């Protein structure tokens, strides 16, 4: 299968270093303390943040920091093949864990002891890169909820097919059997907080592929900043400041 044609175009018309179209919206769920929709091409996720609030289950309460919880779920219609997905299967538990750890690392949890922050991400459409989209959506939702954070966390994936590093794989490219590197960074601090890869890669190619994913994360970060700025301006004007 040819994933990059000799003219240097991918199956969907992108060039190897290009990302899919990004779209984000803040405050989509009025009842939540913070919420956001994040789209990377056809991948669309919605994140809601509740908290900081009273810890629901007292036994989990932490006296020196906030409790961060996360649940990831996929809508039945999110994939091409419809199936009932039992809640809490291995894959979603794993992704929930990954998102929780990534977000926890940037939330200033010590400022909110004895409280709980819930992050819920719901995948509406999956077309590759759901993990990254979830993290990006969660970042926006946390910011919307006004939860203190060290930095934004942004994420992007990249892969390696036909001997070419490709940014932001879609489902078709993701299922091609090549490597899939998902990276999450703290863009201001310039630190990698999440790194996952399946399949094998040579060390030197891995370096390039990871670098590409980091570039992708930075692009996402600048987009997210734009969205947040826009949102803040709107809030300002709404409040007549």
């Amino acid at each position, binding site marked *: 299968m040819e994933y990059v*044609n*000799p*003219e240097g*175009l991918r*199956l*969907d*018309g*992108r060039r190897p270093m*290009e990302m*899919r*179209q990004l779209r984000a919206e803040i405050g989509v769920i009025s009842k939540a303390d913070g919420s956001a929709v994040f789209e990377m*091409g*056809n991948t669309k996720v919605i994140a809601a943040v509740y908290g900081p609030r009273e810890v629901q289950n007292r036994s989990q309460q932490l006296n020196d920091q906030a409790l961060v919880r996360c649940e990831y779920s996929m809508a039945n219609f999110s994939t*091409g*093949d419809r199936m009932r997905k039992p809640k809490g299967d291995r894959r979603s538990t794993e992704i929930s864990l990954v998102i929780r750890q990534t977000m926890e690392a940037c939330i200033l949890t010590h400022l909110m002891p004895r409280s709980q922050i819930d992050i819920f991400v719901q995948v509406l459409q999956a*077309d590759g890169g759901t993990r990254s989209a979830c993290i990006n959506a969660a970042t926006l939702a946390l910011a919307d909820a006004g939860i203190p954070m060290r930095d934004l966390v942004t994420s992007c994936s990249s892969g390696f097919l036909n001997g070419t590093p490709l940014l932001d794989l*879609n489902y*078709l490219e993701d299922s091609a059997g090549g490597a899939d590197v998902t990276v999450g960074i703290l863009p201001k601090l310039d630190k990698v907080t999440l790194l996952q890869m399946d399949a*094998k890669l*040579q060390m030197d190619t891995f370096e390039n592929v990871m670098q590409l994913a980091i570039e992708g994360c930075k692009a996402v970060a600048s987009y997210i900043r734009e969205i947040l700025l826009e949102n803040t301006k709107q809030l300002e004007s709404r409040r007549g400041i």
Partner: protein
Amino acid sequence: MLQSKSFVKKTKQGRVVKVVREHYLRDDIYCGAPLCKVCDVAASRLSSTASTILVVDTNVVLHQIDLLENPAIDDVVVLSVVLEEVKNKNLGVYNRLRALCSNSQRRFFVFSNEYHKDTYVKIETGESPNDRNDRAIRVAAQWYQNHLGSAVRVLLITNDRDNKKKAVTDGILAETVESYVKSLGQPALLDLIVQPPSDDVTMEDAEDLRPSKRKTIYPEHKPMSEITSGLHRGIYHQGKLRVNRYNPFEAYVGSESIGDEIIVYGRTNMNRAFDGDIVAVELLPQDRWQEEKSLAIANDEDEEEDDVHLAPSSADDAPRVPSSAGDKNAMPTRPSGRVIGIIKRNWHSYCGSLDPMPMPAGEGGIAHALFVSKDRRIPKIRMQTRQLGNLLDKRIIVAVDSWDRLSRHPSGHYVRTIGEIGDRDTESEVVLIENDIDARPFSSQVLACLPPLPWSVSAEDISNPIRQDLRHLRVFSVDPPGCKDIDDALHCMLLPSGHFEVGVHIADVTNFVHPGTPLDDEAATRGTSVYLVERRIDMLPKPLTEDVCSLRSDVERLTFSVIWEMTPEAEIISTRYTKAIIKSCAALSYVEAQARMDDSRLMDPLTTDLRNMNVLAKIMRQKRIERGALTLASAEVKFQIDTETHDPLDIGMYQIREANQMIEEFMLAANISVAKKILEHFPPTSLLRRHPSPTKEMLEPLIQTAAAVGLCLDVTSSKALADSLDRAVGEDPYFNKLIRILATRCMTQAVYFCSGDLSPPEFCHYGLAAPVYTHFTSPIRRYADVIVHRLLAASLGICRLPDIFQERPRLTSIADNLNYRHKNAQMASRASVELHTLIYFRNRPTDTEARILKIRSNGFIVFVPKYGIEGPVHLMARGQKEGGKWIVDEQQQKIKKIDGQDSYGVLQTVRIHMEVVEPQPNRPKLQLTLI
């Protein structure tokens, strides 16, 4: 960058899945014209002086690719919609089109119209995908015209009447292929145009103008939907049709659904299928199986005759003999069937010549001729030409276009001329083309991968910890005389313990050929060096093969070595593998090595080493034979070639000496040791070589022949066969060798495979009686060895395993390619020897001895040991079966004169006369007659 979504519906496994894909439209796709003021011209491909730019549609590419490949057609814009359609319809044509687009000599530019914001068209409701694509082509053509302005004429080439009409309405210039080519004013180009099949019926027919010509010759192919449902229900069987190389009226379809081969007898049953086509076959009722077979045999004998050819060296190139041919009443075991539809065509172009025919009266007009392919599996092809007089004595390439039911032969068109028939260079090129051998010089990218020359071992190499310095050892090589690509050398040293240290040193090719480089890719594609009689086509560039890697004497070279400690009884105590540096002290020829060993006066250390090794080799050989290895034989011949004219001066059997066997023995041992080592480290991704055990059926001809001379062979195991071969001694010394030659040709060739694809019992090498085997010892001329070197190096931790070993399917495809290339290389060598045999005998009618292999109804087949050829000797004229001076008993394999004077049986020696005759002008062939 705009975004658009395209909606596609797809079914897989009966499920309906809606697939949604994004489709990004761009504004950075350039037109490829160097004079364009808007676009980035860095990647432009079209010529700056072009006054006309052609836009071709899909059908033009699919049908007229031969025309497009002609340099007269240039400045072509290939739209991505066309590429995509071509790819889906015919991958072969797609690859050729891609090659054109990437060829820097040609001006073919790929325009990604499907991703350009101005040329992307969305399917309209009620519009078929075909119509949509045609519209996309028109939109792109129009865009080009608007984009480039009036200075350039953008011409849409289409044979679709409707499309052309719409184009003209839209104000796009459009022409048919024929009218455009006519406007170029090169009449010969018109030969390249494929005639649309609709013209077929009205076309004057060259072969028969009888009124019956309109009668249907072949049954209709079933529609695809019926075939699919038939395959589903198990009434039809799908498989690749393989035509018997020696009897084009017999073909086999390997069917997975019935787990056996289905035989298809006769052209009517083959129903226009070509060799390599994927076909759907229907089984015939069992009571007709026999009838069809005899029909095919009868058919066979009145159409064509066997030519004299080189004696086959394995079952792969031997004619298939119908088992139990004499026994007409027995129920045949193989099912027989007929082709009811063709699922995928394997048509490509073929090398051959025109059937000789008189020049038609009107000079210069269009003549119809029949083309005969060199490949006998291909039926004659009808074609028309405007240059008949010019083509009659030429080797030409012809491509097949269509084959309708009314026509006995398929129709095709002329592609190009190779040269004159019989000319050695022409015929050699034919051999290369026929066997898909790339004999072009290496590209500059490939040559750029070579180390700087002159090359010598550097201090770095010497200090490299992975490389052992073995320059102090007395290493030597033994090869055929004049060998320049020496890839193996040996040493043998008596250790203080009384044991021997024996080393096999193989050129360290992978030190220079790195994975993923153009050099490596080229070598992987070529797969092997090809040895023709008068030239060698290298797998690697000459500086590597003859200098940098070649283990010549008195120079320091890098090697990959296998070193054993052996007892004097040739028991291997330990094996070690290392990269090394050696300095060979002598490059001997087999003759020299043999002479040294035989000359009892010589007592120098080198000769002692040789003798020691020879003793060890003999023991090893004996052990191998005891394990059941076969001593096989083949009738290899050797030519002496005139260095000036390259014509053969002499021809004779290749002599095998002890020295050859000695070298062979150590190479086998090294290969086996390496095979074990790599398999141990990489069980799923080792490249090994296996030799499948021959089936009883394959050995049938051998058993029959042996039985005819009263010999009973036990073929139950390779050991039993080896023993019975040893016992088969006749009155004359050559008898045993003859039997061995016959045994060899019953076996198939050994093949490469990826160890993960088979289970360990299947790894076995039957001929060598080895449980695992691989190729390690000739990396200069075989790519398999290069792979094995990398595996071995990785197993020693010297270097990292390259990517390809991480994906089994890729390794499998490499093994498949190597098998294909090896087979082709062998066929090419054989064809080259056949060609030179013919040239040699052209002026040298010869009388010689021959052995009868098989009695046939009109004579017998003989084998000429001296020249390694075999062919028919006719005792009766063609077609005359009975009533001659001879009585033939095919059952008993005896032939005798009516007056009882002479009688002949199988394996008997006869004297024959060999002479080149020309039954038809420009078609020389070797004829054998009984003296």
